[in-house]
């Protein structure tokens, strides 16, 4: 298994896309912090990077990589290796390389420039979001053999989680603003890993506003220690559930 992971990582490094991704993240992060006079503004820019670019790159790169290595997977399957082992090695290899890219590119400047509590939260959320979207890519690509269709699904999923979901939520809020829908909204937003990550970072970034009158909702659900644990649990489910579904599909799949 270790040898497959090693091979996947080396293959990704040879591919150079992840290296370029690392450099872009690094250039962006360093310049953002160097240009702005207060680190909060830089953090806001990086918040958008974590919430938009990181999931986009993770989901699309993983999907394309999976399709491109379909022949390699077939070759491996002809060897006496378990299917779950191959699938898991691919998952770990992809996740590790993307995490490494995020940590080196964005993580180091964040840790250097931003206040420790916000930077740690942002780092953790960036790492989790990367993994979640690798997992979602696995789910998307196991459904179809068609590469174009697979990439389409990946982009659609990203669009849904990053943009459409919030729009729908906002629409819901406006439509039902006469009703006490706070709990419902909290519950629905827990169904989107990007929203969860955003709220967790927000609790540290805009702490004065979050402790305000809406704070009751936030603090009860997300701000408290048990709330953070619940959020982390949900995000872990987001990492493993799509992967688990894709694995059961992959096991039975006729290649």
């Amino acid at each position: 298994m270790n040898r497959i992971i090693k091979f996947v990582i080396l293959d990704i490094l040879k591919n150079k896309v992840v290296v370029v991704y690392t450099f872009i993240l690094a250039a962006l992060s360093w310049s953002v912090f160097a240009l702005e006079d207060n680190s909060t503004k830089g953090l806001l820019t990086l918040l958008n990077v974590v919430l938009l670019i990181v999931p986009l790159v993770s989901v699309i790169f993983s999907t394309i990589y999976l399709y491109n290595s379909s022949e390699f997977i077939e070759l491996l399957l002809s060897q006496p290796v378990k299917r779950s082992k191959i699938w898991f090695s691919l998952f770990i290899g992809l996740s590790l390389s993307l995490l490494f890219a995020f940590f080196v590119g964005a993580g180091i400047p964040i840790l250097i420039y931003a206040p420790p509590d916000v930077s740690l939260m942002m780092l953790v959320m960036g790492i989790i979001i990367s993994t979640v979207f690798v997992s979602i890519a696995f789910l998307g690509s196991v459904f179809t053999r068609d590469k174009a269709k697979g990439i389409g699904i990946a982009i659609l999923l990203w669009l849904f989680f990053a943009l459409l979901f919030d729009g729908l939520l906002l629409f819901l809020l406006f439509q039902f603003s006469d009703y006490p829908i706070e709990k419902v909204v909290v519950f629905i937003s827990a169904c989107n890993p990007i929203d969860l990550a955003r709220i967790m970072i927000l609790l540290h970034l805009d702490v004065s506003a979050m402790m305000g009158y809406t704070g009751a909702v936030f603090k009860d659900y997300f701000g408290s220690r048990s709330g953070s644990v619940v959020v982390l649990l949900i995000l872990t489910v987001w990492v493993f559930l799509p992967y688990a579904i894709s694995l059961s599909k992959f096991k039975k799949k006729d290649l």
Partner: protein
Amino acid sequence: MIRIFYIFLLFFSAFLSQANNVHVGKSQVFSTIKEAIAKSNAGDTIWVHEGIYREGNLVVDKRLILIGKNYPILDGNKKHEVLSVKADFTCVKGFKIQHSGYASLDDPCGIKVYESRGVEITDNILDDNFFGIYIQYGKQCVVKNNRIRAYGVEEQQIGNGIHCWKSDSLLIIGNRIEGHRDGIYFEFVTNSVIWRNRSFNNIRYGLHFMFSNNDAYITNYFKHNGAGVAVMFTKNVKMFNNSFEENWGDAAYGLMLKEISDSYITGNHFLKNTTGIYMEGTNRILAEHNTFQANGWGMKIQASCMDNEIRSNNFIGNTFDVSTNGSTVLNTFNGNYWDKYNGYDLDRNKTGDVPYHPLSVFSVIVEQTPPAMLLFRSFMVDLLDKSEKIAPSLTPDHFVDNQPLLHSLPL
């Protein structure tokens, strides 16, 4: 003849200035303060030496100077008001006053001043009293350098640190108040100054101000009070160089102004409050050279406010700079620095060429539907904000700063 007159004068002046020193303590003439007060004449100085004095309620009914040496402890045994001052020009200095009684009808205090002029209360330590220092119908009294501390948990169970009622020309200087209900409470107090006090961790307000005209509070430090500072139903208040920090919560404001008019707010720092300044029914106020930093809402100006001028302030790193609850705008913003401003300055006069609209559409949305805060900083919301900036529809378009500064003011 003239010599006799001089002798007479000398004798007479000696008689006039016949102020004795009276000592109270274990090995002194008097062992209780009560006795010493009873036996001394107006104008005497009573020196109280180290020790614990549990004498119930001490009443100073003549002009005395009470000085504690090494902080003698006056203990109210949780039953009595400790020290009642009922004479003009009394001086209380250097005592440790603790454990006053608790009663909601007559408000027992550490030190209470009844209808007196020129009383000075300086350098005392007040610990665990119901009310700390209470001045009622006082004139020209000085409360200076006292350390007042209580351990209140509930609003109903504890009184105020310095409570002033129906008084005039007071000086409240350099006190440190914590753990009371309101740090400093002013009701019907006029022409007074509150200067260099520190008021923090109080259950309700750091400073509570009602019906008190023509007062000034200068260089005070208010931190982490239950609901910040409230100034209500008052005119002609001057607020200079105060700091308002970390007042977090549902109805917590750095500074809450309710029914205030003709006042002047300058040089203050509002740091990390849920709301920096909250204005309601506030008229003709000039707010300039203040710094609003890292607040949830820099200012909340309700639609009931009129003719206020907000100029030359710094708004840095606030979640929302300004918000309001209506569409009428009767206040002016001019020449402030907004860190969210991204206009340009072609003529290089250090003010931006494009007007700045400090009211973001999302702050309006949150005002109407508070749970929308859950979506803050989401990409959708950013898009909404951007489109609103280009074509305002939800936000009143004359809510505007026409001369936004490009660089922050050195405040």
